[in-house]
């Protein structure tokens, strides 16, 4: 309570008033620590948001206050003090730069260290990057080319202002504010994220990409991503995450909503390698993400591919609501945990439409003292005639101190629906290891090679840009797990 009062005082001092009273030219770079309605008003004011957005945030916050912290996952989450977190932090140059030249060179150098050379990517990779440094987008590229195709790709804070009708229509329509604890929190305090709109019949001319970074100490990151694919459109979206080393745990609660209309396809790929903490798990990122796609149109398709190697705690279930007739949902996942990492991840496939089908391929690799859980739901609703699901979950254990768990839920309410689930758990085969070793590979390389082979079904789903990085990542993540 003391913290809250203090926060209120600070806000009051900084702004001179509470109620709707924040002006956009507040010079604060950071809202004080803590979470209350005034902080939300501050964020909203900072973003120069319309009234409806603020109301929506406040509604979410009020839901959140009443919700219990979820405890069903196989995760040991230390208590989080939500009042000890900064909910808004902007980089020093808060002005949106017109071009890359205007971007703080210090910032650009950080990106380079992380292997995200904006300039090179602009020329070579043909990838448009909407880079989020802390909470404010600082550079967006290829806007013009995308604009020619009619594609809208911009920070969601901008879309709220420039395309309010689209944001208003779709935000919260896939993940309602009251959906879960972390999505409610995100809805209340989200600072930025990406907004993508692909018009009817357009195949997005390039792969869209956002690199998220967590940098500011004690800054919660609450991204909000919204992707809408109109009839007969296609988009492939890449999300990659890196974060520098930190001692204090950092909270990340993102929400990603995808909407696919008739014959549209959205491919969403993630490589997540946030700081996992040290050997004891100290200092890693808490990654509590709600990702959900709605296949609203007939023959629409949403495909999630994820390579999860980072974070101290991962709580993430990218899902598909297959409402459209003959709609398709896919989930390809590799989750690697090492050290003291904990991951509880999986997917939900909700079959509502006739002839909808889904495929789930999940590969979990546990090493060190880590715990890795696949948790999934396949639900065939009564009207989902001839729905089809195939699920395969394989777990690989490296070392005898870790755990691999599989918790699938299957629910079928239509006899014509067909659900198949299979799961296996084993360790790296001695034969394979021996074969690699006697070919002159050292043990670490051998394990990396075998694990990459084990994950191949998922890796081949990744866009080229990610595939190489992801393979390296898996090797790096397993460092120190053998020998």
């Amino acid at each position, binding site marked *: 309570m003391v913290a809250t009062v203090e926060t209120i005082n600070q806000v009051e001092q900084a702004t001179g008033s509470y109620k709707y009273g924040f002006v956009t030219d507040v010079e604060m770079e950071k809202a004080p620590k803590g979470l209350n309605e005034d902080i939300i008003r501050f964020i909203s004011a900072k973003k120069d948001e319309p009234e409806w957005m603020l109301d929506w945030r406040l509604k979410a916050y009020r839901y959140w206050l009443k919700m219990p912290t979820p405890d069903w996952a196989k995760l040991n989450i230390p208590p989080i003090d939500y009042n000890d977190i900064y909910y808004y932090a902007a980089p020093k140059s808060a002005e949106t730069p017109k071009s890359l030249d205007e971007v703080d060179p210090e910032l650009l150098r950080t990106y380079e260290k992380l292997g995200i050379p904006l300039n090179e990517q602009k020329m070579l990779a043909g990838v448009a990057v909407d880079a989020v440094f802390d909470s404010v987008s600082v550079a967006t590229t290829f806007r013009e080319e995308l604009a020619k195709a009619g594609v809208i790709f911009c920070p969601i804070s901008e879309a709220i202002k420039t395309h309010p009708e689209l944001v208003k229509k779709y935000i919260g329509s896939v993940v309602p504010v009251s959906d879960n604890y972390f999505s409610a929190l995100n809805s209340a305090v989200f600072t930025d994220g990406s907004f993508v709109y692909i018009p009817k019949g357009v195949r997005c001319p390039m792969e869209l990409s956002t690199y998220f970074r967590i940098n500011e100490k004690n800054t919660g990151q609450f991204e909000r991503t919204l992707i809408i694919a109109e009839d007969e459109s296609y988009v492939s979206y890449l999300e990659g995450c890196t974060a520098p080393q930190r001692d204090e745990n950092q909270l990340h609660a993102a929400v990603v909503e995808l909407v696919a209309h008739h014959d549209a396809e959205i491919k969403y790929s993630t490589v997540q390698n946030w700081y996992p903490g040290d050997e004891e798990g100290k200092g890693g990122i808490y990654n509590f993400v709600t990702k959900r796609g709605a296949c609203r149109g007939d023959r629409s398709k949403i495909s999630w591919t994820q390579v999860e190697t980072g974070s101290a705690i991962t709580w993430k279930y990218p899902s598909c609501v297959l409402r459209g007739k003959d709609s398709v949902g896919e989930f390809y996942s590799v989750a690697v945990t090492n050290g003291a990492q904990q991951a509880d991840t999986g997917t939900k496939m909700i079959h509502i439409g006739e002839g909808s089908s889904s495929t789930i391929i999940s590969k979990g690799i546990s090493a060190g003292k880590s715990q890795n859980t696949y948790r999934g739901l396949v639900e065939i609703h009564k009207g989902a005639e001839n729905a089809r699901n195939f699920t395969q979950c394989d777990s690989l254990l490296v070392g005898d101190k870790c755990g691999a768990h599989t918790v*699938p839920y299957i629910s079928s309410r239509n*006899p014509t629906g*067909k659900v198949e689930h*299979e799961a296996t*758990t*084993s360790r790296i085969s001695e034969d394979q290891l021996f074969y690699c070793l006697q070919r002159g590979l050292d043990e670490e390389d051998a394990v990396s090679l075998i694990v990459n082979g084990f994950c191949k079904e998922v890796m081949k789903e990744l866009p080229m840009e990610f595939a190489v990085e992801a393979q390296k990542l898996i090797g790096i993540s397993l460092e120190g797990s053998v020998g």
Partner: protein
Amino acid sequence: MQVSTMQPELAHPDIDQLAGDAHSAVAQTGWPSSKHEAWKFTPLDKSGFDSLAPASRPADTLSTAQTQSLTFKDGYLVSAGTMDKAISLRQLGRDDVTLLNWLKLLPKDHHLSYLSLGGLGEAVLLEVEASENEIPPLTLHFTGEQASASAHPVVLVQMADGARLTLIEEHVGSNALSAPVLMADVGASASLHVAKYQDQARSTSHLGLSVLKLGEQAKVNGFTLSKGSKLARMESHVEFMADDAELVLSAIYLGASGQHHDITTVVQHEVPNCQSNQVIRGVLNDDAHGVFQGKVRVAPDAQKTDGQQMSRALLLSRDAVADAKPELEIFADDVVCAHGATVGELDETLLFYLKSRGIPKAQAQAMLIKAFLGDALEQIDDDAIASFMNQIIDDWAEQNNDALVMGNS
């Protein structure tokens, strides 16, 4: 069940304590709703158990029977047959410390444990010695007439090292709720077969709990056929206590109009080198609801564990519902564990094939249903029991098939 209606006359202070704890737990949390993870698919909060009281001891005096059997009525032992000399039977009073020690082995924080402890009826202990001769099967017959009461019989089986026993459990009768408990401690190299058949009246509920502990090189083969009751949950908890033990657990549920069948298993590999294999099959007609929950846990040191599990449900009707939650929880690396689960309807191509060979549709369907259940039935390695179960399935398939064919035409 109301706290006030639970059995008052518990003599041993520690049993009183256990029962008291069970009372308060139930009084505090009530019967589990679908929010309770273990009861997600089989919530009990609307089952009306609150209005039930444990059955009173029937007036019947203990009679003897010719066959090797025990009969329980309303949860109390009413008849005991002549036992093989390797088997000794003891009724355990509520002041008996042996009973207390067994009850302490019930799963902790578990509603079925609360149910037994709170309503504790008759408890009998069967001690089985190793014998050179083949012991004929021992039948446990559970029946009941007090239609608005609940029955809580407890059967404890202590199997000495090297002992062998085949147990047949038959659950019939019409108590509103039957909550039988079977606990078996299977000694080193001992072998236990348990075949359970549940065909209670359709108005009843059955919440059965089996707790099995396996010693070194012990072998247990358990089979369950759940056919009766309106609501039936048959739950097994198996724990491997020493190396090289083997478990086969198979179950079949047959659901028709208004029925809810739940098969729940928890298999705990606490030690290395043990094997478990679970085969579950369910057929659901009309608006029946079938549930399978199966957890295989492998403890950190339980290396070389082989844990397999396969559950399949067949939906015969548009209104049937199947839920499954197979679960692997693995903390050891040198293991081979797998589970599989499927839900679907009869394969049209297979049906077409049989019909094209001149087999009438009804017969073809019955054949396919039986073939589907065959995998689970094959796990029984006692011919007499297998053919008994087979007959029940035949009758069921035929009966439900008529409805099915009529429904389809």
